[in-house]
């Protein structure tokens, strides 16, 4: 049984990542629940998708019980920490998307506040954007993240299932680069860190 919060900002593809993992669980005949909230904004609003694999009925993760937060934006990682269980981990693809209300007030992104909060938890940076750029295809950053999440062993899912789920979720012409992205993502976290979880 595993509960993960996927957090980011509308337009970042957070839902696609959660979908791939959910599909992989279904392929293994597991029960999986995923919340998918659509607020007022089509782009730029906060998004959090919760995924639970195992014998659950509630798709909403109770406070303090999530095994991990997988975040695609720094502020959104912090916004969801109340869901994290003691000893839970944060995987963060470092990206700053400034809230408009802060920009309007001429404020910098709240780096210090974020770092202070994140320091309270086990946090791993996932250089998903950088890897994607190296692969020459910016949009595969999310698949890099899928690989990184898989490498923690938290999902309890087989690699083949994730690969099939990636194929089921994406058009055939981008399979190759996405499978490569997954492969790179798998090797992104320090080996000791990944296996100690």
């Amino acid at each position, binding site marked *: 049984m595993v509960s993960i919060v996927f957090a980011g900002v509308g337009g970042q593809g957070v839902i696609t990542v959660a979908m791939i993992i959910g599909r992989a669980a279904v392929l293994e005949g597991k029960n999986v629940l995923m*919340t*998918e909230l659509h607020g007022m904004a089509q782009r730029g609003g906060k998004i959090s998708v919760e995924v639970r694999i195992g014998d659950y009925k509630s798709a909403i993760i109770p406070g303090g019980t999530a095994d991990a937060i997988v975040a695609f934006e720094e502020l959104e990682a912090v916004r969801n920490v109340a869901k994290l269980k003691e000893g839970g981990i944060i995987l963060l693809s470092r990206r700053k998307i400034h809230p408009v209300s802060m920009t309007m007030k001429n404020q910098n992104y709240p780096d210090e506040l974020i770092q202070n909060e994140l320091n309270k938890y086990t946090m791993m940076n996932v250089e998903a954007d950088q890897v994607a750029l190296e692969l020459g295809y910016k949009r595969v950053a999310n698949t890099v993240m899928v690989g990184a999440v898989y490498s923690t062993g938290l999902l309890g899912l087989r690699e083949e299932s994730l690969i099939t789920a990636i194929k089921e979720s994406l058009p055939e012409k981008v399979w190759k680069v996405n499978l490569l992205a997954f492969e790179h993502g798998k090797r992104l976290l320090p080996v000791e860190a990944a296996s100690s979880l």
Partner: protein
Amino acid sequence: MQLDPLLGPEGQTEFLLGNEAVARGVYEAGVSVATTYPGTPSSEIGDILYRLSDRMGIKFEFATNEKVALEIAAVASLGGLRSFVFMKHVGLNVAMDSFMSLSGAGAKGGMVVFSADDPSMHSSQNEQDNRFLGKFAKIIVIEPSSPQELKDFVVSAFDLSEEVGHPVLIRSVTRISHIRAPVKLGNLREKREWDYRKDTSYVLLPENAYKAQTSIVNRLDKVNSSKFRDRFNIAYGSSSTLIITSGAAYNYIDEALQMLNVRARILKIGLSFPLDMEGVIQEIERADTVVFIEEGGPFLEEQILSTCALRSINRKFHGKLNGAVPTSYEMDVDRVVGFLSKIYGIQIQTKNPVPNIPVREPVLCPGCPHRATYYVATLAMKQKGIKHPIAPTDIGCYTLGYYEPYGLGDFCFSMGSSVGSSSGFAMNSKEKIVSFIGDSTFFHAGIPALVNAYHNNHNFLLVIMDNSVTAMTGGQPTPESSPPFKRVDIESVVRGIGIRNIFSMDPYDLKNSLETFKKALSTDELAVIISKRECALEVDKKKPLSELTIFQIDQDKCNQCYNCIRNFACAAFYVEDGKVKIDPELCDGCSVCSEPLVCPFNAIEEVKT
């Protein structure tokens, strides 16, 4: 990507969104006609049927509003076809007039009305519980709890509707319709043949309506049999504490009990009206404490406690009526643990507080034409010396104009209410009234209100923000969309009413729009601006990658006047140590910010990529 999972064979398991499961259920049930007006959290059902209706053999259409949608579906049912009409909870208010008459006419082909309620108002103006409307309209009410049940109950609801000859309301909520879970697909039922015969009960003039009341009672009586109860209700667990629950609220109870390490007997009700009251009372008689946990309500609680009162059944009852269960907002495991711990008398630890960090409010997308319209509107009013305009607004993405820096939103109740309320303001206020409505909302409920305003000689300026789609719900077509549909032209509609002061503008063209807006503000009778520019997300869908352009700020030219961030406030701007920058991944390339009316120093320039 594989073949469409919604068309998959019986026995296959797919990872479906609740609303996708509904669409599959509609397909399995042999529905012939389906209609809707898009509204979150029900919108995806329409997106799927729009895409797959031909292959599913369903006649599907986006109706102008929910009332029209319901009437189309009602006729299909009376003609012997299975028909399905779906909407968000407040959409049922729009359909209410005809919805109230449904029970009088009954159903020949199965008829199911689907309402997706939105507790906690993730994207709505209230959290009304439409089970009450079902009971009020004397229509059978069914409540699923999960995506699998959404699909299964849609099929069972059609069977039930045909067996008793009565329409059924299915009540979903956000946390069922927008949950994904494995759903096992079922077999396909045969479709019915169109077999319409005239019947006096379809004409609800007083004589026929009088007779219909008896047949309504007779049909609802037929539902009170164990045959139907067993299809929808389940009970399990042994304890002297009985929890009566339904819908999404059910999903949180097992986990909450586990966390508290206590037991309860659970009665999960799927057929909420008419209730299997005998079965419920039997359960209550075996318990000494009874807790009602519902999403919304108290619906089951009120019905059941009325019966208990009549039969002098006294237990320790807890629910929304005695304040043990909170009355507002959606349930989750944490909330259920919170109130159950008090009922069971257990101390619980308080959870981690949420850190105090900056909010991220919903914003108009980069490139959104509404931003340009609002920018021009505020500028035009400033230049005309209009300091305190009254700005009624409406339901759509553009409701976000309420937020700073535009601050244009003084009234918003429901679809079309910008125009109706403008008549009310114009009747009494001395301030300039400038109201805002979107194209789809205008067609939905704005037109009768505009006829009223013209006819009664009310003076205000209505801005119709025409982006050619129903954008907030995901880009569904509007009456302006064509082909294959016939195009309805907004300007012709406005002109047809008799309104003479009609102005058109392209909001991306700030300079001309500003002049147009000022001219429209100068008229001293009813005036309409049609601000037309396609939704930026729709344009992006069609734009090849090679045509992507983005803008950046030349820091040497930037004078740090901050007009761009303070007054235009595109979501792609950000500030670093006092310097304004543009996030290249967010910029839509619309170029509006590069116009001198936003950046008088010409510091915002196109980047060649």
